[in-house]
């Protein structure tokens, strides 16, 4: 590859990764292509409205992949809320207060969605124009397994039983997460949908286990 081509490619890649917003400010009306922290107008320092076209990955400024780095995600989230939290806008004008409330709630939703493996998967599937089907499932072998697991959790009485089930189930979800990552990487949406429905059932079991742990007052 020639150096020129390399530079051109590099530049092109950068244009995609460094996401910069270009718009005119709602407050002072000036065009601005160099927002401060990607949020504030560089002329009048007013907080800009959230961009409706941006997906949750863009809003938080993390790479769009199923294997998000959770520490990075948390850091980006906290950094953003430092600027956006409505408490910081108590003395600003009404319009800016509204924007901050709206923006900060979108950031909350984005963080919650991307942090949780199941919600993240469903969201990424939706970004690709697909949903988990609503129709009832007839994969009998799998359903029998799920039914049995649910019954096991229901019948578990000792602390050891519940802890053991919790461990197994968490490992199951982790394993599905790995498989999902590969399926997303391969762009195999059919497999993604299947894995996500599996994950949905195991997450339901997880909720049931967590309730049992709470009800029994088990301290971990």
């Amino acid at each position, binding site marked *: 590859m020639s150096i020129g081509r390399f530079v051109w490619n590099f530049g092109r890649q950068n244009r995609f990764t460094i996401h910069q917003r270009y718009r005119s400010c709602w407050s002072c009306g000036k065009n601005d292509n160099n927002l401060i922290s990607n949020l504030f107008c560089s002329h009048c320092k007013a907080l800009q409205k959230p961009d409706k076209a941006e997906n949750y990955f863009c809003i938080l400024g993390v790479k769009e992949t199923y294997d998000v780095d959770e520490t990075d995600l948390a850091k980006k989230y906290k950094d953003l809320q430092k600027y956006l939290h409505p408490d910081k806008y108590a003395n600003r004008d009404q319009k800016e207060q509204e924007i901050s409330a709206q923006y900060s709630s979108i950031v909350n939703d984005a963080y919650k969605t991307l942090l949780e493996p199941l919600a993240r998967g469903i969201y990424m599937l939706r970004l690709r124009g697909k949903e*988990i*089907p*609503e*129709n*009832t*499932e*007839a*994969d*009998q072998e799998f*359903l*029998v397994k*799920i*039914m049995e697991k*649910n*019954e096991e959790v*229901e019948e578990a009485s000792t602390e050891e039983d519940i802890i053991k089930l919790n461990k197994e189930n968490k490992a199951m979800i982790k394993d599905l997460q790995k498989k999902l990552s590969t399926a997303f990487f391969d762009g195999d949406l059919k497999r993604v949908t299947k894995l996500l*429905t599996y994950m*949905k*059932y*195991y*997450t*339901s079991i997880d909720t*049931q286990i967590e309730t049992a742990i709470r009800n029994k007052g088990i301290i971990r």
Partner: protein
Amino acid sequence: MAFLLPNIYKCLCFRSQTGLNAVQTASYHANVIDHYENPRNVGSLDKKDKSVGTGLVGAPACGDVMKLQIKVDENGKIIDAKFKTFGCGSAIASSSLATEWVKGKTVDEALKLKNTDIAKELSLPPVKLHCSMLAEDAIKAALSDYRIKQQTDKN
């Protein structure tokens, strides 16, 4: 005065009634809560019994699983029904109601049971309609399992 009093009474009652409705739209209908708190026919029947049909269905969108079983006598009448559901209150109520309804019906009558009837009885909101759908599919699956068992028995 005699005319006025009932009117005042009506007026006050109407007020309290609308207040009640406002609360109910925000939560489950009384019928759902009744079936959720006192579910009818929870349990299992012997899966291997020739006169028992088992339906096992799941809703991929919400992760609910439902098992519904029917026991049919030699005249084709459903004499017992049991269910086990792991899911939300609406799914539990739907399957509980479904077992109540199919009991005493013939196999053909039970096939005509529609999810819309269940949804109507329980006043399910649109987002919970799929729960009643799950119950209908569970009945259908149980009936078809019973039919298959009977046919293989004859052959």
